[in-house]
């Protein structure tokens, strides 16, 4: 055993006066102990000569437990068995596999745990026989951090894959290479995105023509203001397939306000859009079906509505014939009758036009709808039923209501459905009390509220519970779809549909619609 505080004997470097030698040894020792890395000195056979304080901390051995023993005790298998072989090969061939190179290896502590470390080995200059000095840095924590980073990157990648989300970073100042995530490549179905065709140029080329204006506007805004880019648009890819993208991007700027980086995410929402489209189409078919069945139920009343102007026309025409035959006729009478004939013919045509509009299967639109006009148009359709049931229909609207952003036919369908329910609810009420009041007003919150009130028997609690369920009906021959569809139409317009008891008796059905908003980006 050697004293670890003494230089090893037989070392030619140490053939100096004893005092000097001791001083140098002490200085070397202090150096070893001050170092952060563990430092181990071994001789040519691999025996440990020096074991620094840091080494004690890292390995858990005291120096005296290690000095004089083979350094391979600090290594796990297979290094432990092979280490002597490494030394021999070096002595024979002089071929350095580690000296001056350094590498990442694994080491073993006293308690048997194995840890990653960086090992750098140097040969002590001019020492004969050769001695080696090893520097060992415990990199457990760094490895852990690396592992975490690697895992979170792969999780991010997986999340992007699952979410159909790609991202990118464009360094506008070219300080670093641009980054485009693998998923982004797959979303766009391109092998590489590079400076030859920059991302924004590529997207501009591919954006669907009807979305291009919105796309360009938002891009322009991104570049000229602080505003974030947040647009849903379609692209047609190189292979001709269409994808729906939700693209969010932001520019970061330097102190002078120059854009430095362009960071963004591109979300492929094609599947979601497809599902939404399917659901919407189904809803539209159902809505149309409900309108047709409403018209079927109203056929008798509608016949009456067309019969009225026809009757009037017949009588005016007959009056004309008699006036013409009369010897002392007055032309004014004839003219008036003729005028009325054309007015009534137009009226009959108008009834048919509204009917056709109402039942036509058509694309759902969103346009500014004048509520006063809507209620007036509705009168034709609703009054039919009112007459049949001897019900007065009163329209009580505020003048000059603002427009709402809606599909006019669907709104008519909602109001007509509510009015017809109100009329049906009053079958058992004396005729003089049968009145439906249809009112529209502007709420302070910027919504239009439409109320349909009746004086019927009101709603029994069992009915209120299921009122909006599809196929729930209290009427013989009803489809039970009216209120369910009405509510879904109102909701699709951003409004609400509910009911309250009317004063004294009957029910009030309310719905709200937001007043036409500023044009919205989709």
């Amino acid at each position, binding site marked *: 055993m050697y004293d670890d505080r003494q230089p090893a004997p037989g070392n030619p470097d140490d053939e100096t006066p004893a005092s000097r030698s001791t001083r140098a040894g002490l200085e070397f020792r202090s150096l070893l102990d001050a170092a952060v890395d563990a430092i181990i000195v071994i001789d040519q056979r691999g025996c440990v000569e020096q074991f620094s304080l840091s080494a004690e901390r890292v390995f858990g051995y005291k120096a005296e437990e290690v000095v004089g023993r083979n350094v391979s005790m600090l290594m796990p298998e297979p290094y432990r068995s092979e280490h002597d072989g490494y030394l021999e090969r070096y002595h024979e061939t002089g071929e350095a596999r580690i000296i001056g190179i350094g590498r990442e290896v694994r080491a073993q502590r006293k308690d048997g745990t194995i840890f990653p470390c960086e090992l750098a080995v140097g040969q002590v200059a001019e020492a004969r026989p050769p001695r080696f000095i090893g520097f060992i840095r415990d990199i457990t924590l760094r490895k852990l951090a690396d592992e975490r980073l690697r895992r979170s990157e792969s999780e991010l990648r997986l999340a992007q894959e699952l979410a159909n989300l790609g991202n990118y970073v464009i360094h506008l100042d070219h300080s670093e290479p641009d980054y485009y995530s693998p998923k982004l490549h797959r979303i766009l179905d391109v092998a590489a995105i590079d400076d030859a065709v920059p991302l924004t140029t590529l997207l501009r080329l591919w954006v669907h023509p009807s979305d291009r204006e919105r796309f360009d506007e938002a891009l322009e805004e991104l570049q000229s203001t602080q505003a974030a880019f947040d647009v849903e648009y379609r692209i047609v890819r190189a292979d001709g397939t269409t994808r729906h993208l939700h693209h969010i991007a932001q520019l970061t700027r330097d102190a002078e306000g120059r854009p430095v980086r362009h960071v963004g995410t591109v979300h492929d929402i094609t599947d979601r859009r497809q599902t939404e489209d399917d659901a919407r189409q189904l809803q539209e078919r159902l809505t149309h079906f409900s309108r047709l069945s409403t018209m079927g139920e109203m056929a*008798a009343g509608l016949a*009456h509505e067309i*019969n009225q102007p*026809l009757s009037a026309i017949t*009588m005016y025409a*007959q*009056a*004309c014939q008699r006036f013409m035959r009369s010897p002392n006729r007055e032309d004014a009478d004839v003219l008036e009758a003729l005028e*009325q004939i054309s007015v009534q013919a137009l009226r009959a045509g108008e009834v048919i036009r509204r009917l056709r509009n109402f039942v036509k299967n058509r694309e759902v639109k969103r346009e500014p709808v004048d509520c006063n006009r809507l209620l007036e148009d509705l009168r034709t359709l609703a009054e039919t039923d009112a007459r049949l049931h*001897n019900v007065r229909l009163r329209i009580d609207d505020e003048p000059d209501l603002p427009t709402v952003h809606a599909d006019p036919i669907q709104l008519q369908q909602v109001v007509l459905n509510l009015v017809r329910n109100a009329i049906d609810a009053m079958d058992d009420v004396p005729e003089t009390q049968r009145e439906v009041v249809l009112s529209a007003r502007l709420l302070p919150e910027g919504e239009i509220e439409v109320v349909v009130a009746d004086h019927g028997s009101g709603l029994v609690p069992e009915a209120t519970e299921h009122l909006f369920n599809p196929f729930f009906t209290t009427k013989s021959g009803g489809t039970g779809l009216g209120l369910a569809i009405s509510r879904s139409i109102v909701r699709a317009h951003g409004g609400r549909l509910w009911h309250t008891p009317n004063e004294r008796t009957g029910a009030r059905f309310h719905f709200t619609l937001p007043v036409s908003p500023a044009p919205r980006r989709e």
Partner: protein
Amino acid sequence: MIKEIRPTVFVVDDDAAVRDSLRMLLKSVGLPVEVFESGQEFLDAERDDRPGCLVLDIRMPGMSGLELQGKLNERHSILPIIFITGHGDVPMAVEAMQAGAVDFIQKPFRDQDLLDRINQALEKDAGSRRMLAERNMIRKRLESLTPREREVLDLVVAGKANKVIAGDLNLSQRTVEIHRARVMEKMEAHSLAHLVRMVLEVERAEE
């Protein structure tokens, strides 16, 4: 005496075009016509005792045609009613006929059909009014009789001979003959049979 008023066709229909075209049609045949847009408006105008007839839409919001008919019946109006019905209103038309309507006509109709019905209704109204006028006249004559004359009249109409009447009333036969002559004169009766017919006419109406 009652001043002769020309019979008028009253039209009640809530549909402005139908109402106005009816007005034109009736004007073209020279019939006086007045139009109303609701049953209430017609009731308020108090036309129900005028000579004429009523052309009434059976379906109206608020007061329906049938309700107006009921109200006129309550007022003992004799105005004949022609109902205008739409397609599929047969049950209501039946109800209207049972409540005393003279006729109904389904829209759309030929003008001559309506005018024929209106003429029939006006004739019926004129007949009813003549009868009412006659009854009123008889009543007035009856009211001009003294109590004793009325007693004698009732017994004469009952078919009793002068002698029996004298016995019943404890009068001389001569006195009965004088009363009877006064009755015939006041009642403007041409014969005993005429007198009996007049009294029965009034009594039947008052039953």
